[in-house]
């Protein structure tokens, strides 16, 4: 079989590995850093691929496919496994028919996540094996093993990646045109296995414990766990991206690279430990390997060397190793100690020019509602006014592009916990007796993901809250994936579309408004009206994501004669509007023109104009 050498990201390699392993069904909800796995699978022929409404649904669909005897894959980001935990644990109990691989991509360092949980714990918790690649080549190679292991041991397999595996491109030798053998779907009735009433579930637990024992012996001979013996004075046990950092920093040491990090190949570890003078465990985040190895009675250096918080990198590892005397002092003083600290302006991400969420965020701030001191202005009378406004509307937010409205200058949001939480939190605040008016904001994809159940709760329990669904007709934050409200499938084909307003009415909400995302006065008026009513209300603020549609209107220009330098336009937080000295300018390369015109609406002097050219 022809092999080609390609530069693949970990996510591309996982997708290709699964495809070549004969996967038939793949499901996911987009989430950084996992999104590209399904995006890549969606380009491949002969398999079923879907964006599910959330990770729990994705897990259930993949589990169903596995019961039909075919190989199935479900992918998600780390927090997605929290959503999918229920069916994930259930899958561990029933086991599988066709191989079931659950890819979860952790995000140490929180590049784009709300926490940095270490999902290796899920493997031990749910009593399933875990496999971890350390580069794209392994990500590709391990996939076949993962499916085989799943089928042989009747268990889902947790395939764990991290941002630096998923989003790093490394060289991989892959099959050019694989001879793919997919299993034929066939469901064989077996209520003792598939119907987990207590009488059927009880005998499964001892089987699960037995499975872990068998897996432990299996892992001892797992060919991809690799022992590299060099200088025996230090023996490093590591896995995943941390292994590569360790190789980079410790040039001659001995290494035990683990691909199977649960259950651990204990005999192999003991043998390795006996070959070296001292054992160092290098792992990101929690002392997962360290704890188990210590319980085995082996003395190790672990978290006293490698931080428990944040993403690891070769820099940190080298500095810590030098300080601990594991590596020699460098000849020169390190440059970073010499460096003159300079405060450079930060560049936080912000809403794009022409973003349909900007007007709503602006309105929410203006209606309410500074809850914090505005950092973006000089001490002035405005600051005192801002203080007076503090008793305004509370805005609970969800997770998506609109969460960026928490940053200056918009400063519009008060909470953000997890997908789907905004509506429930608002309801909780209200039922707790908070006297402020409360508005929750949530995106269209996120509303379908898990907002809808909270809205049903509000209706049922006689809440009064106002929900704003920011509908930009895509899942923008992760790169414009389709969802049930878009009418576009994972493969980019047209499909039936959920009508958001009908869906909302179907939950029992009677007060439903649909407003244009670029009509600031209407948005403001609608919010004002809705927060005064005694029944739940939903405002769907609709406008397309400019990064997706990429269309421009007539250009906007600034009439400097009219401008009185109040700089209110800067409060919109538009990257296309800049102050040059005390002159306002519009960057025409960024501005989407009168498709947005929010600056024009907030200017009290009509200094912004639509140019006819």
């Amino acid at each position: 079989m022809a092999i080609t050498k390609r530069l693949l990201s970990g996510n591309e390699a996982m997708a290709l590995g699964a495809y070549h392993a004969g996967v038939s069904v793949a499901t996911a909800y987009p989430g950084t850093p996992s999104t590209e796995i399904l995006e890549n699978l969606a380009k491949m022929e002969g398999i079923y691929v879907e964006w599910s409404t959330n990770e729990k649904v994705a897990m259930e669909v993949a589990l169903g496919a596995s019961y039909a005897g075919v190989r199935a894959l479900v992918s998600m980001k780390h927090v997605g496994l929290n959503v999918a935990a229920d069916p994930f644990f259930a899958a561990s109990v029933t086991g599988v028919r066709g191989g079931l691989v659950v890819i979860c991509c952790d995000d140490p360092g929180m590049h784009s996540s709300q926490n940095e949980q270490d999902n290796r714990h899920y493997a031990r918790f749910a009593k399933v094996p875990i496999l971890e690649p350390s580069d794209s080549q392994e990500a590709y190679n391990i996939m076949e093993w993962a499916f085989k292991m799943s089928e042989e041991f009747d268990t889902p397999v947790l395939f764990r990646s991290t941002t630096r595996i998923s989003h790093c491109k490394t060289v991989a030798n892959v099959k050019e045109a694989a001879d793919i053998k997919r299993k034929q779907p066939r469901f064989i009735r077996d209520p003792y296995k598939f119907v987990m009433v207590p009488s059927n579930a009880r005998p499964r637990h001892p089987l699960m414990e037995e499975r872990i024992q068998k897996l432990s012996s299996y892992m001892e001979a797992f060919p991809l766990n690799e022992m590299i013996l060099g200088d025996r004075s230090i023996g490093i046990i590591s896995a995943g991206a941390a292994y590569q950092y360790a190789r980079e920093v410790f040039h001659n040491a001995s290494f035990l690279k683990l691909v199977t990090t649960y259950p651990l190949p204990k005999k192999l570890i003991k043998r390795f430990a006996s070959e070296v003078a001292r054992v160092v465990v290098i792992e990101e985040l929690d002392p997962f390997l360290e704890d188990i190895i210590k319980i085995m009675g082996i003395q190790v250096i672990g978290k006293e060397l490698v931080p428990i918080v944040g993403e690891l990198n070769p820099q940190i590892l080298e500095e810590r190793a030098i300080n601990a005397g594991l590596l020699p002092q460098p000849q020169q003083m390190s440059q970073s100690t010499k460096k003159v600290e300079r405060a450079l302006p930060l560049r936080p991400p912000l809403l794009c020019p022409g973003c349909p969420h900007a007007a709503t965020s602006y309105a929410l701030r203006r209606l309410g509602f500074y809850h914090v001191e505005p950092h973006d202005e000089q001490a002035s009378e405005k600051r005192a006014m801002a203080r007076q406004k503090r008793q305004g509307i509370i805005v609970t937010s969800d997770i998506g592009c609109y969460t960026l409205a928490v940053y200056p200058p918009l400063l519009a949001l008060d909470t953000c916990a997890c997908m789907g939480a905004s509506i429930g939190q608002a309801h909780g605040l209200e039922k707790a007796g908070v006297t402020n008016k409360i508005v929750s904001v949530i995106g269209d994809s996120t509303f379908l993901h898990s907002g809808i159940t909270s809205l049903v709760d509000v209706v049922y329990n006689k809440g009064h809250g106002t929900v704003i669904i920011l509908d930009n007709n895509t899942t923008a934050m992760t790169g414009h994936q389709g969802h049930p409200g878009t009418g576009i499938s994972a493969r980019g084909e047209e499909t039936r579309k959920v009508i958001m307003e009908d869906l909302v009415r179907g939950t029992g909400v009677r007060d439903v408004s649909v407003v244009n995302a670029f009509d600031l006065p209407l948005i403001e008026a609608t919010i004002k009206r809705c927060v005064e009513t005694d029944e739940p209300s939903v405002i769907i603020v609709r406008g397309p994501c400019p990064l997706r549609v990429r269309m421009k209107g007539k250009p906007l220009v600034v009439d400097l004669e009219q401008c009185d330098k109040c700089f209110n336009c800067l409060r919109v937080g538009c990257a296309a509007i800049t102050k040059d000295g005390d002159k306002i300018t519009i960057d025409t390369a960024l501005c989407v023109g009168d498709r947005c015109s929010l600056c024009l609406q907030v200017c009290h002097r009509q200094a912004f104009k639509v140019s006819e050219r």
Partner: protein
Amino acid sequence: MTKTDVLMTGVGGQGVILASDALAEIALKAGYDVKKSDSLGMSQRGGSVVSHLRMGEHIFSPMIKKGDVDFLLAFERLEGARWADYLRRGGVAIINNLAIPPLSVVGGASIYPSTVEVEEIIREYTDEIYFIPATEIAVELGNPQVLNVLLVGFLSLFLDIEEKSYIGNLSQRVPQKFLQLNLKAFARGREEALIRKQNRQH
């Protein structure tokens, strides 16, 4: 080529990732082991973008250590200053002399560094500094978006990879109707590097 570490930095939307993808492919074709790591996600919303690109005989870590970078290729001045401490002593800093002020600057909360200040910061690590008006040249050529190809062209003169490998990759990557413009941008970047190297004018 001995091990070469390139750090590309810029602002979301400038084409940093595209440029490092292209260079990584070119280095792979030229026979090197390659690893690269990008910041993704939030940064595409106008945030700060960085791409670590490593090439050589055998690469382990996909991330470069501070003090190891051979070439800092900054698509924007402030981002050049921000990542200067990754440069190794005597490394090469190639800075597009363009200012994209972040909102904190526009709002008056912080001050954007001048070219002289950026130079001072970088000089703590190296004297090999090139400021190029790359965006201006790209606009002159007809499209500011070819900035990334122009900068890769400039960098290419310093790397041990044949010129035709770049041309070949561009021809595969760029749609036919933009190819001439991109080839022109690449050539122009390379030419600029040659002139400055000869004049030792930074």
